[in-house]
């Protein structure tokens, strides 16, 4: 046994997952056995966040829980083309990852943890039979804004490459409407993906969420304003949801001056919350 990477199936798709076995090399968390399944963010953010998520999964296993990371269809080491995916197929991938994690670990209880749009997908995955606890790190709450940010990323890349004014987002929307794709950092965004992402609204989807949950607002400085969006999300989720604040000078999902490999305040927030899960 031990830590291991393996392929598993999500319908016709072959995905790559990596299981971290419980080590309990540090004080074990006082909760019943569980497997924490991590969902990565999208596009460039996935690559930049990889060391952080790997470290976070390692911390969870060091405290005595199973942890699993995996690549969504068309991402990382999983097979397929990214543009063949949709929001619904990504949700299926998460459900398949949870089934695989349960089967491999022999532990039924799943906790989903995601970063950015990975958190949003985790929240919408509906991994049943009951709603599972969610740990959402800087989730994308409104898909409308996020989808427009994707198009803005295209404009930024074009400006840097061509050193001149490029197209507008309206022109990119027209391309999508005509069935063309928009290349965002090498990922060919389709109209189906764009529409699916636009439809995401966590505040509505998670209203009165029945399981305990954590939302982590990651800020750069101690004096930074709290996110109104995340505050509203937690209020909508109800009394089972906790809002934590983590001050991390370096962004978790964007390459900065220093490549982030650990985010200690996020670790503390996640591990501290996990410890409370079985408390009345």
């Amino acid at each position, binding site marked *: 046994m031990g830590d291991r990477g393996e392929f598993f199936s999500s319908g016709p798709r072959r995905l790559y997952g990596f299981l971290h076995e419980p080590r309990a090399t540090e004080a074990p968390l006082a909760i019943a056995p569980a497997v924490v399944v991590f969902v990565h963010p999208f596009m*460039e953010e996935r690559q930049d966040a990889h060391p952080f998520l790997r470290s976070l999964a390692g911390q969870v296993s060091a405290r005595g829980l199973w942890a699993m990371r995996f690549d969504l269809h068309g991402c990382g080491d999983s097979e397929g083309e990214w543009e063949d995916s949709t929001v619904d197929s990504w949700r299926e991938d998460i459900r398949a990852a949870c089934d695989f994690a349960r089967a491999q670990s022999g532990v039924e209880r799943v906790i989903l943890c995601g970063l950015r749009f990975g958190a949003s997908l985790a929240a919408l995955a509906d991994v049943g039979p009951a709603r599972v606890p969610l740990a959402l790190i800087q989730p994308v709450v409104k898909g409308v804004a996020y989808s427009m*940010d994707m198009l*803005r*990323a295209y*404009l*930024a*890349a074009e*400006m*840097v*490459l061509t*050193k*001149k*004014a*490029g197209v*507008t*987002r*309206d022109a990119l929307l027209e391309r999508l409407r005509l069935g063309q794709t928009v290349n965002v*950092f090498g990922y060919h965004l389709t109209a189906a993906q764009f529409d699916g992402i636009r439809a995401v609204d966590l505040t509505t989807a998670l209203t009165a969420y029945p399981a305990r949950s954590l939302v982590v607002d990651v800020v750069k400085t101690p004096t*930074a304003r709290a996110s109104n969006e995340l505050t509203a999300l937690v209020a909508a989720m109800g009394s089972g949801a906790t809002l934590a604040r983590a001050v991390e000078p370096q*962004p978790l999902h*964007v*390459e*900065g*001056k220093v490549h982030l490999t650990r985010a200690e305040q996020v670790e503390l927030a996640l591990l501290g919350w996990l410890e409370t899960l079985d408390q009345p």
Partner: protein
Amino acid sequence: MSSEELVTKVRAYVLSNFPVADPGAVTNEASLMDLGIVDSTGLLEVFEWLRDEFSIEVLDAEMVPDNFDAITSIAAYIARKTSAG
């Protein structure tokens, strides 16, 4: 904030947030894109900083090198946007 103060603030932001091997070699007029200091994801970070720090929302039509290619051009853009109120 005076234009000199804006340049100082932008310079401090750029040097502390982006990988710069030799800060002394980066003049305020140098092309941050040509030097590889700010790439497309970096540009998005600059936009986020402008929103957080100056409440400036960059419009699509404003996404041109004249506004963002150098420390002085970013500072001038901020001055225009904030004085336009």
